[in-house]
């Protein structure tokens, strides 16, 4: 490490996704793209930028505003030997096309006894914080993760984004690839700088379904995904000032869910805070807490969740910012746990 300085190459998640897709498209002729404004425009969120220029309109296909049709078509193409990567521009739009996703894409493998595979990736943007209102700011993690037959993954940094996208494209199963707008590295959406990390030029996979210990610690486990991981990391640094050692776990994947990683960490720390920008009830935070409760791990204090309240996402900044998960809420949750211990 002291010799020649390794060439650092920091990428945004948007660029890391585009790079992975491009590399797979070069290697595998069956990989192609469909979605709205992914062609010449390069995707509203930048994750298909450059692909139209390199691969042309036959492999990078702008669609009509017909999500049911083009996601249904992706199922048909995937079952016939192709590997479509399709974009649902905002995850919030799933309501117009979820049948194609959850009843066909996710179940056809099972219905065919494994004889028809549906190797496709559905990438979709999540998250709020920039006042886009209640139909353009949701995360909907649990909405997808609750229903069987699809893998559901979501990176928190560019390295994972590239490796997980590569793994997703190569996976013989359907994969929902969620990217959080605030981590995307598009200036106009605000940018979480810590999501922009060094990414190798060569191809590599980050296996789907394996959580990452993003920061080691001994006093409390903070579990999150996408934006939640960054809130967790910042909170951990603040807690460190107070002499508290927080472990931060990045789930990276909701399906499959790396329950072992959660249990292992909580066994060590005895304290759990789960952070999620998706709605509070019937969501990821409950699943993680239930997993720990079922395992009967002795806890020093009741676990806490920091999630989006059960309200439609308000437009106005004071309300929206107040409702979002935050470093302060994580610290408060920790303090609440300490009080409960007294």
């Amino acid at each position, binding site marked *: 490490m002291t010799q020649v300085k390794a060439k650092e190459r920091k990428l945004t998640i948007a660029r890391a996704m585009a790079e992975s897709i491009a590399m797979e498209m070069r290697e595998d002729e*069956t990989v*192609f793209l469909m979605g709205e404004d992914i062609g010449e425009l390069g995707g509203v969120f930048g994750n298909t930028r450059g692909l139209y220029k390199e691969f042309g309109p*036959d*492999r990078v*296909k702008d*669609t*009509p505003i*017909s*999500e*049911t*049709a*083009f*996601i*249904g*078509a*992706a*199922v*048909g*193409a*995937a*079952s*016939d*030997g*192709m590997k*479509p990567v399709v974009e649902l521009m905002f995850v919030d739009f799933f309501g117009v096309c979820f*049948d*194609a996703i959850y*009843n*066909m894409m996710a179940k*056809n*493998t*099972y*219905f*065919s*006894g*494994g*004889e*028809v*595979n549906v190797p496709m990736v559905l990438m979709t943007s999540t998250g709020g914080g920039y006042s886009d209102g209640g139909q353009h700011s949701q995360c909907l993690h649990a909405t997808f993760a609750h229903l*069987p*037959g699809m*893998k559901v993954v979501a990176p928190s940094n560019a390295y994972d984004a590239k490796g997980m996208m590569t793994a997703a494209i190569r996976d*013989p*199963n359907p994969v929902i690839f969620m990217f959080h707008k605030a981590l995307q590295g598009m200036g106009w959406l605000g940018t979480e700088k810590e999501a922009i990390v060094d990414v190798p030029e060569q191809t590599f996979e980050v296996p789907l379904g394996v959580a990452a210990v993003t920061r080691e610690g001994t006093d409390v486990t903070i579990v999150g995904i996408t934006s939640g991981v960054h809130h967790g990391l910042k909170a951990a640094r603040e807690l460190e000032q107070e002499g508290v050692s927080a472990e931060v776990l990045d789930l990276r994947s909701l399906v499959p869910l790396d329950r072992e990683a959660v249990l292992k960490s909580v066994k060590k720390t005895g304290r759990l805070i789960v952070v999620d920008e998706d709605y509070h009830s019937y969501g990821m935070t409950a699943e993680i807490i239930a997993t720990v409760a079922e395992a009967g791990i002795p806890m020093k204090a009741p676990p806490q969740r920091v999630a989006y309240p059960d309200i439609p996402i308000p437009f106005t900044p004071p309300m929206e910012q107040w409702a979002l998960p935050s470093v302060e809420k994580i610290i408060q949750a920790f303090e609440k746990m300490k009080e409960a211990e007294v």
Partner: protein
Amino acid sequence: MTPTQEQEIWMYQHMVISRFFEESIEKIYMEGKTPAFNMAKGPIPGEMHLSNGQEPCAVGVCAHLNKDDIVVSTHRPHHVAIAKGVDLMRMTAEIFGKKTGLSGGRGGHMHIFDANVNFSCSGIIGESVGVAAGAALSRKMQGKPGVAVAYLGEGAANQGAFHEALNLASVWKLPVVFVIEDNAWGISVSKQASTAVKHNSDRAAAYSMPGIHISDNDPIQIFEKAGEAINRARNGEGPTLIEIETSRLAGHFMGDAEAYRPAGEKEHLVEIDPIPAFKRRLQKLYQWTEQRDESLRKQARETVEAAIKYARDSDYPAPEEALEKVFV
């Protein structure tokens, strides 16, 4: 485009097999379900949508298809599956929920997948059209031969998916044919009460594609029109919409009391049953003797019975196998 004698007999044969099949399923379905009808009971539990009367839609189209072509059918799939050459043994075993079924019993009668002949179907109205368009896109992109055919009911033509997929198929000029089996009913709701247009084929203009209306449940007419549409698709000239006025001889599903049918409708449909009509045609054109007919029927019956025996004799899967094949 007229069928050869051989093709006509193939069509007749597959209509007969299909009808025997449905009649057998109908009987077996009721086993264990009397005196009190309970869907969960008997060797064939669950919903059962029979295709009696709609056989011409299956054979008239599929006569033009080979194994490589793709067919995506509906919740009422048996006749089409049979015409497309789906493995009847494994399909029957699937309907019985057996280990030897096409999916090992996971799918059932509304989820028949046979990858060997590129057949699939699905239980939600309007699902077929997008999938078929996508398969057609796949062939076009890969430069591989093969066209795709989507079947749907006339009721499904009021589902948004129909509109989106037809537009997409036209914009991308995909090798796909959309075949509406207009049996006049969506469960208990008539086409007239639910559809703003008399013929769904007129809706083809909304997608700048040819729209063909076939008012007779006649395999020959269907063969001719479908042949043209499939040729157009094979030649890269884009999609076609076909609507066939056909007959639903049975209830929507087994157990349907059909009180909503106007008096006399059922009797009329039985009178114009396409299978006896086609037999008369063969008799007129091709010296189709009772003897030849009996021999074809016997073969058909044997084919169906062999499939049913296979299904009956097969074992059920182990319960825990339910956990397999979610992912591959």
